[in-house]
């Protein structure tokens, strides 16, 4: 594995532009080839003539690895999570999934009470090496198919939480997650999959990203400054990284230089990168698609308000979905999901306040 590869796109290194779906599938394929203990569990993930899971990520893997490694399950989310945890206890490295993150609540007991706690309850003797993948984000499917659930899992001690915003990170983080000896909840944003054909999402970003041909891993707990800036810090994840970047471009034209941080993993969280940025820019806006109250952004605000309050030149603000379920009608959903305009507006206000 190359350490060079952990640098961002570099013309010297052979690689190619791929979608998130391609990148995640490649991560699964590479890890399955490398380690026989890696198996997949989920609904509709390996059926012949089927979808490769709800968003095609596992397409073709049952053909390559066989149905004993790509297990199509009944609709039994609690058992999917619990069976994965049990298999992990006995030495496998299962990667399980739900078709929509919203169904995680069905598996929550197994994830939060068993997978997350078994190592601790055993006094550190066991480990539960599993990954649980979950697509999040609103895509005009209404209240039960569009939630962002990162905060719930960030609040469970014993679980790691990843949330990549681009194919490069997606691949590198998923490979790391699979090799991690702890349970990892791996959030993927539906509008970032770049799925094509029938599974293409309206409003989906055409995110393709460069990924080196050489193998690489991305460690957990390292945020990425995706745009350095001087005037304000924007902290975001998943789709909101892209919206924050778009906002930063607009703001740049107005002379406001925003630093954008992609948190990449919520647990462990790279507090230092955020703190350093805030100490430099003296202003903080957190951007998340999750509901405002109790979102992961609250934790970021709280930590900064503890560690960096003396450096702040104004209030800590959050742009998040309002405290409502996800509405169906696109006009309402567009209002619900934080927009580039809202980010820009909030930044304008923040830089104005104490300038």
């Amino acid at each position, binding site marked *: 594995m190359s350490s060079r590869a952990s640098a961002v796109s570099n013309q010297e290194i052979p690689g190619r532009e791929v979608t998130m779906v391609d990148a995640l599938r490649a991560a699964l394929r590479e890890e399955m080839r490398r380690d026989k203990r890696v198996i997949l569990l989920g609904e509709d993930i390996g059926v012949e003539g089927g*979808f490769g899971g709800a968003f095609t990520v596992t397409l073709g893997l049952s053909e390559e690895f066989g149905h004993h490694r790509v297990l199509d399950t009944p609709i039994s989310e609690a058992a999917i999570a619990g069976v994965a945890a049990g298999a992990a206890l006995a030495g496998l490295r299962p990667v399980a999934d739900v078709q929509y993150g919203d169904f995680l609540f069905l598996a929550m007991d197994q994830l939060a009470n068993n997978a997350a706690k078994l190592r601790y309850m055993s006094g550190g003797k066991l480990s539960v090496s599993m990954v649980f993948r979950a697509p999040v984000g609103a895509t005009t499917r*209404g*209240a*039960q*198919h569009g939630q962002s659930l990162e905060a719930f899992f960030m609040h469970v001690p014993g679980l790691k939480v990843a949330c990549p915003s681009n194919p490069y990170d997606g691949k590198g983080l998923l490979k790391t997650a699979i090799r991690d000896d702890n349970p990892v909840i791996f959030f993927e944003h539906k509008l970032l999959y770049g799925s094509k054909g029938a599974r293409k999402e309206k409003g989906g970003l055409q995110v393709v990203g460069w990924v080196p041909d050489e193998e690489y891993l991305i460690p957990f707990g390292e945020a990425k400054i995706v745009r350095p800036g001087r005037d304000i810090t924007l902290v975001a994840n998943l789709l909101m990284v892209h919206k924050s970047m778009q906002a930063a471009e607009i703001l740049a034209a107005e002379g406001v230089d925003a630093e954008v941080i992609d948190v990449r993993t919520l647990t462990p969280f790279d507090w230092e990168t955020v703190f350093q940025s805030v100490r430099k820019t003296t202003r903080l806006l957190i951007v998340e698609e999750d509901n405002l109250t109790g979102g992961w952004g609250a934790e970021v605000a709280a930590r900064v308000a503890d560690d960096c309050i003396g450096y702040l030149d104004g209030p800590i603000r959050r742009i998040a979905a309002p405290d409502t*379920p996800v509405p169906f*009608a696109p006009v309402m959903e567009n209002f619900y999901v934080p927009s580039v305009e809202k980010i820009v507006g909030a930044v304008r206000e923040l830089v104005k306040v104490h300038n």
Partner: protein
Amino acid sequence: MSETKERKLFMYHRMLMCRMFEERVYYLFLEGRLPGTIHQSQGQEASAVGVCSALEDKDMITSTHRPHSHAIARGVSVRSLMAELFARETGCCRGKGGSMHVGDMEAGMVPAIAIVGGGIPLAAGCALAFRYLEQPNIVACFFGEGATNIGTFHEAVNMAAIWNLPVVFVCENNKYAASTAVEKVMRVKRVSERAMAYGIPGETLDGNDVEAVYQAMRKAGSRARAGDGPTLLELETYRFAGHSRSDPGRYREPEEVAAWKQRDPIARYEAKLLAERVLEPAEITKIKTSIERELEAAVAQAESDPSPKPEDCLSDVFAS
């Protein structure tokens, strides 16, 4: 017209309405005029209509991610359904629910629950309320065969069984849960065998025979109404379309699909009613035309209906 004849024509009409609604909606999707996704139920109309035709006023149904036919069969207004799919203020959920959550408790339908199995406890709960309030009503709880593998099915059917609640569990066994064939995910041959685990009657029947469905539901309904508890009805059927809008259904053999299309519940019933002379050939076109017109009007109305305002997304979280 005799009551039976009237009912038969009613069921025929309702099934056609379900079918034509779904076809219309499908084209609207292809044309890009509807947002979101849809799960269609062409081929399953006999179960929706047979069950709902056996219900009384103020009875309730619960439904799933595939709710259009259930809603139509239960008598939710077609306009309000269409408007909901168009994300209009006038929709049955005022544009907040969408295809997967259509419903209207005034019309006897709890908003559909799109999480597989998630509606089953709600059905048992409604039934508990009916019994407690000494309301002589029952609940028909729809779900797919795939849902019988999830925990809530088990817990809620058991709870309804021990308390003899007035609910009929209606499993539409269309052989597939998304792309997953039923044989792969359960070892029992019939879903109805699962009733045994709860000590309640279970019955498997031809879910494409609307008359048979109606009769079985009457019976199970009477039992429930009499306080003798729930029944698990397994209705064998098939969805002609893919699982959702985006599914070409390549996991099914074309022969299998073709064979089931031979058992089209509407064509079969039509033939039967013609043979019984309940229906005259000339009436068919008339009925279809009138449905076509109703759908046309619903679409036109929905298109001109007001959209919710963006900020409307903030209301209706809490009752005050």
